[in-house]
């Protein structure tokens, strides 16, 4: 017992405990916020985090609040993301339908090079509004794990559904269309 209380074992134990604590802190601080996911699992709609970003076109800033009262399909994407390429034509098709019903798709280009992102928009003929988050600052707030990810925001600015990975026709019909009937 006296041996265990000697200075060297105490120092070694202290260093090991400090390293484990540091590792735990590192893992905890890098873990994205899963609050949105948990709220949706409990059937609750959480207020969407604030989102104010420059427009991808370079023409000033845009925010999620600009679309308050509308149903917003908020899609996080990047030009280097392969599934985003497959998903974009579907989002464009749905945007054309949604804009007639007081709803919109809103794209957020993240962790991306601006030239390639604009070329992507031109290539796929995307006409829905686009914001740019080059540094990916919104990633933590929305608990984004990868790209693409899509959040459906109701007319009151609350998150009503979300999808990790590309969305399909089924998701749009089941998760977006019912919200169009809701009043603000």
């Amino acid at each position, binding site marked *: 017992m006296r041996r265990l209380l000697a200075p060297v074992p105490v120092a070694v134990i202290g*260093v090991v405990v400090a390293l484990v604590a540091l590792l735990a802190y590192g893992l905890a601080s890098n873990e994205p916020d899963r609050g949105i996911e948990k709220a949706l699992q409990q059937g609750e709609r959480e207020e969407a985090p604030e989102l104010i970003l420059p427009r991808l076109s370079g023409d000033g800033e845009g925010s999620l609040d600009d679309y308050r009262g509308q149903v917003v399909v908020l899609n996080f994407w990047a030009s*280097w993301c*392969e599934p985003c390429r497959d998903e974009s034509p579907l989002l464009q098709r749905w945007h054309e339908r949604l804009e007639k019903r007081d709803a919109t798709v809103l794209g957020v280009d993240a*962790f991306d090079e601006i030239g390639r992102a604009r070329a992507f928009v031109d290539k796929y003929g995307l006409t829905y509004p686009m914001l740019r988050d*080059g540094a990916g*600052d919104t990633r933590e707030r929305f608990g984004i794990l990868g790209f693409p990810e899509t959040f459906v925001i109701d007319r009151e600015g609350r998150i009503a559904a979300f999808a990790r990975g590309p969305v399909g026709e089924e998701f749009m019909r089941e998760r977006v269309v019912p919200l169009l009937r809701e009043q603000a």
Partner: protein
Amino acid sequence: MRFAVLATAAALALLLAPAPALAQDCPKTTLGDIEDEVMCPICGTPLGLASEAPQAQQQRAFIEDQIADCRSKEEIKTALVAQFGEGVLALPGDESGEDDVGDVLVYAIPAAAILLALGGIAFAVLRWRRGDRTGRRSGEPAVAGSDTARLDADIERYDL
């Protein structure tokens, strides 16, 4: 006539001389040189370690374009920050002020590790020296007493 041709050739040579010099100045840096000093933000690792990630590939293509445009390392880093934010630099700390504890730890841990290592070495040296001294002291009585008397007798007998 001959003089005029020679003069024209000399003038042309002078005019053309800076071109190879410029070509030697460019490129000013290499992809490998920059890769170790910037992050792949979405991978959370230095770009050099993020070999297959699509964003890393895009960043590399961006850097290679900049190198081809004869930009210096610092100019390329500035361009990367403009595209991907301060987080692209492989340095602790960012403008947002988030994760302050982590930023301090990045500097504090190596310093603490060095101090700990120095302390350990000092401690080991002290113990070793103390042990050596104790050993020498404990060795003295071993040849004392009856052994000493016998040793003296042996020395006298052999006339050493």
